[in-house]
């Protein structure tokens, strides 16, 4: 079947093809309709409802929401000092987590794409995909077992006299930080790997032929060409990390809680859908706002870098 497809490329007849195109057109444009309806019904309308609820209020103990009086009060209530401090902690964990992921993932992706022999690449790639596809919650529980004060890591450390007492990491924000770096690391490695694997080795050779050292080649060729992967990876890690609910629930305890849990609590235990909706809207605004700011900043940095290199290159040629 596939060989046929490659072979079948005769010069299209002048009159027949447009006619065939017209005949093909009608049924296929409809293909996008079901998914559009599905997204409208179960993504746009539900979120619209959340935005609507966020302008309402919780009228009584057993009622989740009411919208007969509309106001922005829930947003004021959501931006309370308690919410704000957890929000700042979430942002801190997310930014730190994204940076640590990048620092761990870049050398790994570089190792896989540039240094590793091609026959090993597929195997290492599979080894990175396996943790990614293992249940998120189960992996996090693996850390909970390991970090507990009576756990085997704690006992080993005490046995080796590396710590004085039991390990006190579980249920702190340090445990959450470790958990999120672990959970989102594959999402940083994979786009970086894809970007670095597509990097043409000829460009690296050209840079060396033109007298570039290992470091100048790395800074002026490898880094700029991996920027799409860096941006994609940062987005893929930062966005879900900001809304993470499982990692802080399993590892965080009271001192490591994040915004996702606060939103969830309003819909579950507190049954205050109006306030929860306002928090969710604020969370979405914060995520997209931060992503846009970082994206713009990266663009500016990229532009400066290109300008700097293009200024430098002719200078080198003259020298």
């Amino acid at each position, binding site marked *: 079947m*596939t060989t*046929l*497809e490659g072979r079948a490329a*005769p010069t299209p007849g002048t009159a027949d093809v447009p006619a*065939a195109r017209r005949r*093909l057109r009608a049924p296929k*444009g409809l*293909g*996008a309709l*079901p*998914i*559009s309806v*599905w*997204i409208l019904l*179960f*993504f*746009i*309308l*539900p*979120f619209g409802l*959340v935005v609507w609820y966020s302008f309402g209020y919780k009228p009584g103990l057993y009622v989740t929401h009411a919208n007969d009086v509309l106001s922005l009060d829930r947003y004021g209530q959501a931006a309370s000092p308690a919410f704000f401090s957890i929000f700042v902690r979430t942002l801190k964990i997310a930014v730190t987590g994204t940076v640590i992921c990048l620092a761990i*993932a870049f050398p790994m992706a570089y*190792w*896989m794409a540039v*240094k*590793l022999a091609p026959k090993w690449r*597929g195997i*290492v790639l599979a*080894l*990175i*995909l*396996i*943790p990614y596809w*293992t*249940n998120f*919650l*189960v*992996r996090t*529980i*693996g850390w909970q*077992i390991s970090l*507990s004060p*009576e756990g085997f890591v704690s006992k080993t450390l005490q046995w080796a006299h590396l710590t004085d007492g039991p390990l006190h990491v579980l249920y702190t924000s340090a445990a959450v930080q470790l958990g999120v770096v*672990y959970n989102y*690391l594959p999402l940083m490695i994979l786009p970086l790997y894809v970007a670095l*694997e597509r990097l043409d080795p000829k460009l690296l*050779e050209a840079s060396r032929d033109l007298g570039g050292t290992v470091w100048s080649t790395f800074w002026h060729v490898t880094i700029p060409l991996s920027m799409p992967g860096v941006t994609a990876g940062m987005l893929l890690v930062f*966005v*879900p990390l*900001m*809304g*993470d*609910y*499982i990692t802080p629930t399993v590892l965080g305890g009271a001192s490591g809680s994040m915004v*996702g849990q606060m939103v*969830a609590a309003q*819909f579950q235990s507190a049954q205050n859908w109006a306030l*929860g909706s306002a928090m*969710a809207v604020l969370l*979405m605004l914060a995520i997209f706002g931060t992503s846009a700011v970082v994206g713009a900043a990266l663009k500016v940095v990229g532009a400066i870098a290109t300008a700097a290199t293009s200024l430098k290159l002719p200078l080198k040629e003259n020298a």
Partner: protein
Amino acid sequence: MTDTASVSKPVRRRRIRPGDALLNVWGMLGLLFLFFPIVVIVVFSFNTGRTLQMFEGFGVDAYVSAMNNPAIVNAITVSLITAAGTAVVATLLGTFAGIALTRRPGWWAPGLLVLLGLVMVTPEIVSAISLLPWFVTLGVDWGFDAFNIGQVRLIIANSLFASAVVTFIVRARMTGMNEFLEEAAADLYAPPFRRFTDITLPLIRPAVISGALLAFTLSLDNTVVSSFVSVAGSTPWPVYIFASLKASLRPDIAAMSTLMLVLTLIVLAVAALILRRDPTGEGGGAAGLTSAMVGR
């Protein structure tokens, strides 16, 4: 030029530079880090103790008790039915959308792509808390009883993200194909349905099958959205684990998780084999394979 390259390469490989050695160590440590908690879970699934955290002895007791626990078996059944249903819905929606996006991209195409992207990047917790009130509105306030059934809610909730993934996989496969075969069929007066079943579908079969398998595993792993939309009696497996976190974790959970991990790995291996056999589409090459498997 080619001579110098072929001569210099073996020489460079034999002499390992300190920088390369450091990268090797870094890569190995990274892999160890990624596998650490998984190994912990697998090891602790052979724990004979009463709680998961304290390893007391080695044995397969946990596997036996997990298999004989009706709540666990029920949760696994709910998860498998949900995953199968999600795979069917997501594959149908995603395949048609992927074909339409490559073959007849109209004014709606950029908008649909942005929407699909939004579906994929919206944090799960936000999707979860928006679907819960919506299902309550549809099912309780407006009387559409279907939306009160746990299984229906779970399949709808899981199929959104999964159908976006299938759409992108099918779209990637279609981009590498020209349209002459379909036109030839049209010229030979094949009706649209025959054209689709006899020409288009066989050509994109690898993408459709691997998309369906990915949708299946995505749904099997989903915790956050499922825990919000599920109703009593139809608790999927990850939600069961999440609920037992508050009480205490028993080794049964590690045992069943290990079995589910094996199932996921088998499904993914099949998906990878199908994608690798596909010589023309984006699925070719490790990088393309990665993009397809990550679904992004």
